[in-house]
């Protein structure tokens, strides 16, 4: 059943590939061709392999068969600051999807955490990566939420240690069934976000936050900051408290623990 298709929430479309350069690149191409009011969103784009999977700032996302590579293309009808909250929605959905598709994780939910803002960790190693990209099509503003989940393999020699479901000694789900759970979970959390705003998302995220109140370093493009992970702001920024008690608001950067 390796290629069994996922079951998606009503109204979603699926675009499936054996292999594609990158599901997020495909999202961009589909987005450019969308016409206003053609009612075709949201679209899940799923590939068994990616030849040019990518991460943040041009990094490569190793994309071997057996892992999940997908992108959700949706309308982006909120200002950028608000749309960025979907980063946290997506992370919570990945956690929930893993708990649903891996029985052991349903029983041991504490093994899953989230590293600010949206890297899902299993036993403190990165098991999923999420990258959101907003862009404009001729007809409407769009948001592509790219999600990779390591089910049976993970890259070595990464800046932050990685893992996968199988290596962690768990029963790995098929990518398609993992996508079914993920799509349903994204739908549920998005609905909650639309109806109740960021507050419940922030609360649920904080419950899962790795390293909260602990020491962190945050790598920015030109400097590395150190401090205590004080809180998540009302907008989702990381609040890092320095030695001097001053809080710094961080909107982008790479987090490392235990400095």
């Amino acid at each position: 059943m390796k290629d069994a298709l996922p079951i998606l929430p009503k109204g979603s479309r699926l675009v499936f590939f054996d292999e594609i350069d990158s599901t997020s690149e495909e999202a961009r191409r589909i987005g450019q061709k969308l016409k206003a009011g053609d009612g075709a969103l949201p679209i899940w784009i799923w590939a068994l392999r990616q030849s040019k999977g990518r991460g943040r700032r041009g990094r490569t996302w190793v994309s071997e068969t057996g892992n999940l590579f997908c992108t959700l293309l949706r309308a982006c009808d909120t200002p950028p600051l608000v749309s960025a909250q979907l980063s946290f929605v997506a992370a919570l959905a990945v956690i929930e999807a893993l708990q649903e598709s891996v029985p052991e994780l349903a029983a041991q939910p504490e093994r899953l955490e989230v590293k600010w803002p949206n890297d899902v960790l299993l036993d403190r190693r990165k098991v999923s990566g999420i990258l959101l990209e907003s862009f404009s099509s001729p007809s409407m503003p769009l948001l592509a939420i790219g999600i990779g989940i390591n089910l049976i393999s993970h890259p070595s020699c990464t800046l932050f240690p990685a893992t996968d479901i199988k290596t962690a000694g768990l029963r790995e789900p098929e990518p398609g069934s993992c996508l079914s759970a993920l799509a349903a979970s994204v739908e549920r959390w998005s609905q909650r976000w639309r109806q109740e705003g960021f507050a419940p998302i922030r609360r649920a995220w904080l419950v899962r936050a790795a390293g909260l109140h602990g020491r962190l370093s945050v790598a920015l493009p030109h400097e590395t900051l150190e401090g205590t992970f004080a809180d998540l702001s009302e907008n989702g920024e990381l609040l890092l408290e320095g030695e001097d008690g001053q809080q710094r608001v961080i909107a982008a950067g790479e987090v490392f623990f235990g400095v």
Partner: protein
Amino acid sequence: MKNDHKKNTKSDAFDHDVIRDLAGLLEETNLTEIEIEHEGLRVRVARHLSPAAPLPVVTALTPEQLALSPGHGSEAEPELVQHAGTITSPMVGTAYLAPKPGDPPFVKEGDRVTEGQTLMIIEAMKTMNPIPATRAGVVLKVLVPDGQPVEYGEPLLIIE
């Protein structure tokens, strides 16, 4: 929490034989994609085509445009910040002047830009937000260096 997706029956899903048949059909017919709909679920099977990436618009400068470039350094900046063509940051984040490290910048001072053209990217919470030109014109000044954290409303760039 409800598990809505579990209410769906297996009959809602295509089995993988259908996909294989479609993929075979693609080969036979030389089509690039086939899309079918079945009980509300639509599936498209496509061959991988090489993407046609849009090329950045780069225009050679005319002397007139070059004359618009500021040549008088920092004392001009307070004035420039008030300029009607100032693009400000819609959020707190980090500004990137190029698509990825090592790439040429989206725009340089003196470049002619069209409305909607991407000028830079602001990253916040792992969301990449392209900042579009709000009008056509010439890039008079880029006000932030690459990789710089920016505040909400901070001037990023001026289009003349």
